């Protein structure tokens, strides 16, 4: 058979059929296959970006979306200039008019110096959603990873700024989508109730001279102290010991952060660490921020890191095991997370992509989810990602000269000997794991740290005279067993020179039982990097009970500070303090039958749920203050001759019932606190006699008048609800029993 040598032209129909067949086949392939198929790793060197590009054109499947309408941030021209935000090329701060849903005011803004985007600063007195500083970063579909990470970080219990997507508009022109995230700064910490914390930043790039020492946002004393504490921990790490580091960092939060930093694909050297150092516990909590840039998996895995506060902890066997266990637990939660991420896709993809490119956007997010769930989460020994050489920044050895660094902590095995020494020096009695201070006089002339694992008991008639600026810290249970007739005394050695603090430094499991204590003349102190603001500071106890005691004459400080756990105060007299007499934070419980008199503040309640029952406040600047989302019930109290009897702020809820307010300048002040949020006050039946002003309530706060306190509220405070008196209903006939 021979083929005809005659050339045959291909007609237009053949071309059309050929093209339709090929394109149709490809569209079918991309549109009918599940999205996860497109998201997989492809063979033959086909890159994910290539698949995404094809999918953008050929994936025509319908995408299910929710009707999210993003906020539009409208920026006007800057002061003295008319230039549009998007045409502005100059760096530095500008004042612009800003408006969005329910907010309009002038703001300060400037371009970021470390990448594209802007930083916006709202006025102190006109915060936006309670936020002072936000970052606006140009967003693409890839920024969904940051949103996923925010959800994941919250799930792992990390402090993390909220991420949303907004549209920016200026000069009538709506610009692209931006990722909005709150800037992590001191205002951020305050907003999350970390009032007593400093922000610590640490670089991880060992080639940068400017990032080799931690940067501490705080006063100069805090900076010096924290830098020294961190340097000590780093020196210990360099010597192969991580105990000091484990004491300094909250290990659960560290594990969560390390998991996040593995999952999000950051370049560790570029991003660095941000932590909040809590002075009342001496612990640092890492704060999670989604990375600005991600790098391909494995590309920067071998780069050495600077000595830092987190990655060396993985050298501890227990820590590494907990890291692996937490990652395994996360694997088990993957289906739930996938569902959440899909809901996020539905909500945000229409904001990030237009209708035509939605299928492509979905493919891109599937790709991200595939990497997160099927590659990173399932990878064996993810902790190996952090097994890198560590070294100090350039010139660190010489620059460290003269930096105050605390002494190396003593190994645990030496503690036993130390307790023996202490007991011998002060003639204490040790029985098993309890240290007794029997009746007698004790002159404490240097800081006394009674170690973890030992309960400390002060017996009736024990009298402690503490030298100026000297403190006593118990790391185990603390018991004071006095009576009002035969109390335990704690006083300064010299009346004019205050001592530091008498403190309990617990880890959440210790107990504190105090009865018959007469304490005066302390002003707080910082011991081993932990700040104890109270003359009597009780941190981290599971339960704190103080009864029949007198607290007086605290110098320049809080008299009693209780942080965490359950609280029960009964019949405690607070007198003559210049500062706050009782400060309760992060706790729940009751304060009963106690009296407060002096020139300072009576009771300050922060992030706690406390019932204050039958107490009296006399002649004070502020009788009771509720702040930082506290819930407080004040009932049966007598408040007399105070400047402000009650102050509520910062998202707090205050129930005021059955109290007597006599001759106060102002009974109730409800206002917007430093967090930018107001308070809510429920007023029940109270008696007001001769007060100059009954209430001052600002626009952010609300007062509701109610008739009677309900049982549910009382139960919420751990109080018994009054018996419900049922009105007998007359029956149709007499019952047999009554007969």
């Amino acid at each position, binding site marked *: 058979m021979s083929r005809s040598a005659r050339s045959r032209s291909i007609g237009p129909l053949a071309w059309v059929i050929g093209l339709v067949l090929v394109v149709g086949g490809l569209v079918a392939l991309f549109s009918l296959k599940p999205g996860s198929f497109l998201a997989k790793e492809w063979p033959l060197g086909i890159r994910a970006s290539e698949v995404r590009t094809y999918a953008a054109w050929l994936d025509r499947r319908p995408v299910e979306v929710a009707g999210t309408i993003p906020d539009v941030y409208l920026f006007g021209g800057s002061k003295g200039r008319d230039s549009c935000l998007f045409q502005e090329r100059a760096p530095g701060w500008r004042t612009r008019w800003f408006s969005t849903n329910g907010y309009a005011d002038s703001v300060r803004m400037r371009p970021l110096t470390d990448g594209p985007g802007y930083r916006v600063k709202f006025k102190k007195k006109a915060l936006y959603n309670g936020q002072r500083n936000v970052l606006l970063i140009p967003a693409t579909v890839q920024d969904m990873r940051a949103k996923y990470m925010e959800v994941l970080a919250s799930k792992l219990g990390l402090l993390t700024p909220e991420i949303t997507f907004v549209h920016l508009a200026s000069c009538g022109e709506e610009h692209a989508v931006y990722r909005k995230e709150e800037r992590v700064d001191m205002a951020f910490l305050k907003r999350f109730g970390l009032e007593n914390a400093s922000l610590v930043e640490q670089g991880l790039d060992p080639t940068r001279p400017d990032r080799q020492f931690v940067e501490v946002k705080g006063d100069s004393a805090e900076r010096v102290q924290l830098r020294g504490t961190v340097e000590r921990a780093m020196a210990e790490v360099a010597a192969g010991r991580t105990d000091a580091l484990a004491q300094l960092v909250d290990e659960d939060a560290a594990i969560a952060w390390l998991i996040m930093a593995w999952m999000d694909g950051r370049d560790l050297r570029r991003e660095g660490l941000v932590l909040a150092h809590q002075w009342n516990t001496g612990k640092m909590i890492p704060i999670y921020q989604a990375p600005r840039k991600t790098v391909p998996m494995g590309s920067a895995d071998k780069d050495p890191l600077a000595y830092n506060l987190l990655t060396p902890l993985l050298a501890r066997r227990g820590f590494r095991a907990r890291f692996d266990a937490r990652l395994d637990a996360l694997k088990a939660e993957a289906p739930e997370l996938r569902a959440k991420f899909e809901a996020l896709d539905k909500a945000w993809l229409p904001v990030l992509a237009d209708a035509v490119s939605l299928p492509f956007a979905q493919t891109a997010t599937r790709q991200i989810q595939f990497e997160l769930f099927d590659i990173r989460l399932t990878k064996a020994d993810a902790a190996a990602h952090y097994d890198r050489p560590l070294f100090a920044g350039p*010139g660190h050895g010489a620059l460290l000269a003269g930096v105050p660094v605390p002494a190396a902590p003593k190994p645990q095995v030496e503690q036993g000997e130390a307790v023996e020494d202490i007991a011998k020096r002060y003639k204490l009695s040790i029985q098993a794991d309890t240290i007794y201070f029997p009746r007698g006089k004790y002159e404490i002339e240097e800081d006394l740290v009674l170690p973890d694992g030992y309960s400390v008991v002060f017996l009736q008639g024990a009298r402690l005279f503490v030298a100026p600026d000297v403190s006593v810290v118990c790391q185990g249970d603390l018991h004071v067993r006095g009576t009002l007739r035969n109390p335990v005394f704690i006083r300064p050695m010299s009346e004019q020179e205050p001592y530091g603090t008498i403190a309990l430094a617990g880890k959440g499991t210790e107990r504190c039982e105090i009865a018959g204590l007469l304490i005066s003349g302390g002003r707080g102190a910082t011991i081993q990097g932990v700040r104890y603001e109270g003359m009597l500071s009780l941190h981290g106890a599971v339960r704190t009970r103080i009864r029949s005691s007198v607290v007086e004459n605290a110098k320049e400080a809080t008299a009693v500070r209780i942080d965490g756990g359950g609280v029960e105060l009964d019949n405690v007299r607070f007198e003559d303090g210049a500062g706050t007499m009782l400060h309760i934070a992060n706790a729940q419980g009751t304060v009963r039958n106690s009296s407060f008199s002096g020139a300072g503040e009576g009771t300050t309640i922060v992030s706690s749920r406390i019932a204050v029952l039958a107490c009296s406040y006399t002649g004070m600047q502020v009788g009771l203050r509720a702040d930082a989302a506290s819930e407080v019930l004040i009932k049966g109290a007598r408040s007399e001759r105070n400047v402000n009897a009650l102050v509520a702020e910062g998202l707090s809820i205050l129930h005021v019932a059955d109290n007597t307010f006599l001759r106060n300048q102002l009974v109730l002040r409800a206002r917007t606190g430093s967090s930018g949020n107001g308070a809510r006050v429920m007023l029940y039946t109270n008696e007001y006699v001769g007060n100059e002003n009954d209430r001052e309530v600002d626009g952010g706060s609300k007062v509701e008048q109610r008739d009677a306190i309900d049982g549910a509220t009382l139960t919420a405070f751990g109080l018994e609800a009054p018996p419900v008196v049922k009105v007998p209903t007359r029956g149709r006939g007499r019952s047999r029993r009554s007969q």
Partner: protein
Amino acid sequence: MRRRKRGIGKGWLLVAVPLLLSFIVFAVLLGPRRMVMIAASSFLSTTVDGLAEDPGPHGLRVLDVRIDPAYLDTLGADLPWSGGTKYPATLMQDGIEHPVEFRYRGMYSASHFLGGKRSFRLYLKKKSPLAPYRKLNVINPKSFNMVNNHLGMWIAGRMGAPVPYNEMVFVRINGEDHGVMEMYEQIDGDFERIRGLAENDVPVYKGDYPPIVDRGLPEKRTLWRSADNWEFEGKADRTLSDAKLRALVDVIDDSTLTIPARRDTLAQLIDVDAYARYLAAMLVVNTKHMDQYHNQWLVMSERTGKFQPVFWDGLLMFPPEGEPLYFINDALAHWFLRIPEWRLLRDRYAYAAMRDLHHSGAFMQEYDRTIERIRPSVLADRNKYGHVTLYPADVHRFSLAHTISSFAGMRATVNAYWDRLSKRLAANAVLVERDAQLHLNVTSEAPLRLTWPATEVDPPMIVAGADTLYPEALHGSWTVVLHRELGLPEGSWDRPFANWQHYLVMPMDLDVRFPLGVPRQLVITNAITDEPIR
């Protein structure tokens, strides 16, 4: 079939003859070797560099500088004299124009101002993409491999010697590629503030060639001759630091002081540990580039009130002649190295660096990482200029072939030198004889440490040669170091201000007498490496 014979065309002759003539003329003018090197580098640059296709995205930071071309013309009109005036420019980053000031820099090295890749300095505002740095030099790298200085600084920094910030960058000027350069912090009073150590400026002194006033290079000055030869930088109060610097100069200049008196006075004025690290880094980097006249910085620490040196412009493998163990780069080193315990401290830092950088392979890993990071930018750089001969004026274009060969050469040179240095520091050529006394004959260079169990409460007095030594207590033992005696090579000038001197370690032939005879459990170790000598 016969092929028709064809002659060489006239056109070819017209090309070949001038080419040949130009070769002959240049060979006569420059000398054949110099001519060949320039021609070869030009040829390779044209032929080889063009072969690099698709180098990929830059791994280095891209520095995008915009400046009015008229300003550039003015600055370049009469180099090097015309380059010192600052002109406004912008640094582009993410579409934002950050205002900076720009000037050319470098009078003393022709590679700064000759050729097409001129070094310059940027003066930045407080908030800039390069914050916290306010003054940055952007330097044409001095070697073909471009990372020579960068890695020298990396080594010194890792050894704990203070160094300026140094980063390799890819520069674009007015939208055109300028090539790979080295960004280098210009030290100022904010040195400690930048490093997060001080709230305010600290006193900083620059030890360099005198500033240029008119057209012409001023005469060099020996820095340690006078405190006035050090230029103060920054805004700190200089009353105390000036007095301390004068005191330091006096101690160095006074040749009548005993070694203990000199040691005790110096220890009040300089941070001995920092100097030991600095001199150790000089030995490990194998450089002589900081000398009696230039490349020196002193920073007075806010915390200790003592002067710390800054390791500046430490070219890797720019060695002093003869590879001495105790090279005297300046008058302070002349005295510092004479104090035995300080010398030992320096040697121990050097040996620790050998273990950290060489034996563990950390340096070569960093070297490979640096090459990996710089590769796309080097391939994209068609503007590589450097000294292609030993003549200062011969700053010409060089090629990728030079760079690649220089990378390989540097790797081999560093490994070979560090092998030799490690062996030298760890060498134990010691002959020991024990009878009623200990006789030591040592031809290696390290000092020796004698350690024996302590049985007495008071330290026993031992006699080593003519010296009486008192051992120190250490973990239940007595220990004493037998330091080595130094000398100068024959014909050298034993003066602190003499240039390029070095010390030699004299052989030790010594009897050591113990009060109760030689202890049975006496252990002799190399005092640098702590390795026992068997």
